[in-house]
């Protein structure tokens, strides 16, 4: 966002734009400056980053999460510089799907990816990404783009609108598709060419951590320290924060961290109530957010919060993240056979939405949301009671429904909480 802001509003060469970016110490939250609408700015071309769009409310740059329904619930998308925390469902079935949709969206838009995991090799994770569902028009352009990487700029002469030939074109950085937000087919794998054409970095913890345990001065788990150094290195080397004079980056870095806080990362908050390193995870999140705020990156983290023994840590982690979404799947619970939920696979709770550069935030009114994974698509819908069509309305069935609706969630997020025992 910083790069976009300073580039448009002044000197022509991108070098000076980067210089001003690092000098004036902008963060990714800078609002786009007042730009004269094309009349004064005939010099520099408009450089827009593929796959991003400014927010309607405050001009913040947003990226898609990979699920258009989720984008809408979050107020347009995930803001660059923020952290999206997903509280995993109990058996970790649906949260990897959200994680992979986020990464697949990055590949389709041509963003750089950084995948960190302690469980699976990032190369394997990328192999399992879902395939994008492209409609016919964009599918044609996608096929052509993939096989002709080096097509020269098309100089087809315009016959009718020949005046437009002279205007500067919008420079887009190699996207596969120019839409914001795509649908993904969960049953198919992403084409191999797309993965090979993308720029990604993987962090697989067993490879990075050396066997000699050096005593680290900070009270962070060694895995977290290594991950933070890796992320900071990539951000600096590839120029996402504008501080590297050699690299002028106009792309977004998407960071995905899987199962953060699980014992595989060396953290014991899932095993013991008052572990030795109970501040490790919160410190990590704080420094990570500091890194993100000053670079063109967005991060998704999945965390098994249902395993964390100390509930206070969950509250602190929620406070330190920007967007928090909880997934609750029905598998294995008594809700699986409940007629109320027969169409859905689980509930999705949006626990927190940040207020960025603003006093208010775009909170959706709908608090009861459910998701289902059909054969291909993952959809999020508003949960509503099915109509009561039985002829003889028995007392027991009404009781069951009433019980279930009471447990539908207190109907509120972090925005305004209420006491749970109030009943309407």
């Amino acid at each position, binding site marked *: 966002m910083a790069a976009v802001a300073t580039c448009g509003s002044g000197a022509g060469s991108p070098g000076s734009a980067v210089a001003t970016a690092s000098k004036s110490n*902008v*963060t990714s*939250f*800078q*609002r786009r400056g007042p730009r004269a609408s094309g009349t004064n700015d005939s010099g520099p071309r408009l450089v827009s980053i593929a796959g991003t769009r400014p927010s309607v409310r*405050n001009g913040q740059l947003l990226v898609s999460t990979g699920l258009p329904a989720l984008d809408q619930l979050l107020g347009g998308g995930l803001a660059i510089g923020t952290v999206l925390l997903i509280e995993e469902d109990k058996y970790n079935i649906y949260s990897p799907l959200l994680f992979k949709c986020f990464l697949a969206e990055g590949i389709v838009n041509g963003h750089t990816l950084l995948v960190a995991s302690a469980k699976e090799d990032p190369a394997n994770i990328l192999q399992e990404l879902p395939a994008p569902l492209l409609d016919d028009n964009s599918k044609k352009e996608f096929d052509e783009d993939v096989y002709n990487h080096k097509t020269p700029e098309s100089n087809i002469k315009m016959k009718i609108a020949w005046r437009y030939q002279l205007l500067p074109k919008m420079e887009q950085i190699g996207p596969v598709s120019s839409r914001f937000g795509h649908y993904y087919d969960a049953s198919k794998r992403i084409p191999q060419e797309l993965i090979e054409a993308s720029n990604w970095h993987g962090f697989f913890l067993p490879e990075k951590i050396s066997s000699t345990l050096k005593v*680290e*001065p*900070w*009270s962070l788990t060694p895995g977290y320290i290594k991950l*933070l*150094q890796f992320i*900071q290195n990539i951000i600096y080397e590839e120029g996402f924060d504008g501080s590297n004079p050699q690299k002028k980056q106009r792309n977004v870095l998407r960071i995905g961290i899987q199962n953060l806080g699980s014992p595989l990362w060396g953290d014991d908050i899932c095993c013991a109530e008052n572990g030795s390193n109970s*501040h490790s995870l*919160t*410190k990590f999140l*704080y*420094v990570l*957010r*500091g*890194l993100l*705020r*000053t670079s063109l990156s967005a991060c998704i983290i999945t965390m098994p919060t249902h395993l964390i023994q100390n*509930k*206070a840590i*969950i*509250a*602190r982690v929620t*406070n*330190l993240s920007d967007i928090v979404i909880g997934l609750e799947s029905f598998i294995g619970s008594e809700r699986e056979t409940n007629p109320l939920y027969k169409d859905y696979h689980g509930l999705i709770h949006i626990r927190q939405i940040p*207020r*960025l*550069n*603003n*006093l*208010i935030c775009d*909170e959706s*009114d709908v*608090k009861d949301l459910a998701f289902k994974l059909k054969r291909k698509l993952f959809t999020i819908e508003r949960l509503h009671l099915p109509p009561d069509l039985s002829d003889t309305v028995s007392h027991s069935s009404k009781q069951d429904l009433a019980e279930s609706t009471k447990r539908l969630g*207190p*109907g*509120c*997020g*972090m*925005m*305004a*909480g*209420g*006491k749970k025992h*109030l009943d309407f």
Partner: protein
Amino acid sequence: MFVELNNLLNTTPDRAEQGKLTLLCDAKTDGSFLVHHFLSFYLKANCKVCFVALFQSFSHYNIVGQKLGVNLTVARERGQLVFLEGLKSAVDVFFQTQEEPHPLQFLREANAGNLKPLFEFVREALKPVDGGEARWTYPVLLVDDLSVLLSLGMGAVAVLDFIHYCRATVCWELKGNMVILVHDSGDVEDEENDILLNGVSHQSHLILRAEGLATGFCRDVHGQLRILWRRPSQPTAQRDQSLTYQYKIQDKSVSFFAKGMSPAVL
């Protein structure tokens, strides 16, 4: 600053009381609008402000401040505002070894130390400049928010010590004000946070508590604000005054109304 809140608190930037500690507390909702209010209030009152902003970045406060009528960049250049940006400083402390002591040095230490470097920073920022006429009325320390220090590994007692040292310097010695935001964890048993909250509310003169509505989410009423005036130094001969209002946050202001008197309902 929100004019309606000034009326409720019976203050204006010209005649605000000095030597007071104000506690901002939020339970199950976001109380950051109060921080923006006090920041713009004290900048308009021509005070020297030291803002320890641990929660969000500088440009966030700047953009919201511009909506409320203050320009933080200009204030910082003039010397009226000393801004400690927690997120940026944490990254600096973490990745580069610092020679001189940094206010957030405790991030690098394994054991929970104390917040002495942070206190030194605050004292240095707010000490009156000798020589030359006094440009600013009185110093103000603003902290957003204190619960982050607990998440970063400090113990509740260390944070309470820090507040005590700051209060002795800022409120008593320099006759300034302090405004602190602490999250209330509510029914989640966060013992350290409860100790911190109780300790600070015992020392404070004014407590503003933003709570969610008991009935849950509402689009027209965003929450409830409880105002409590206390006199911690004097014996409780007079009863502490308490008022409750409900509020709705808009783009540039917050409107307050009595309970049940929301314009949406009437």
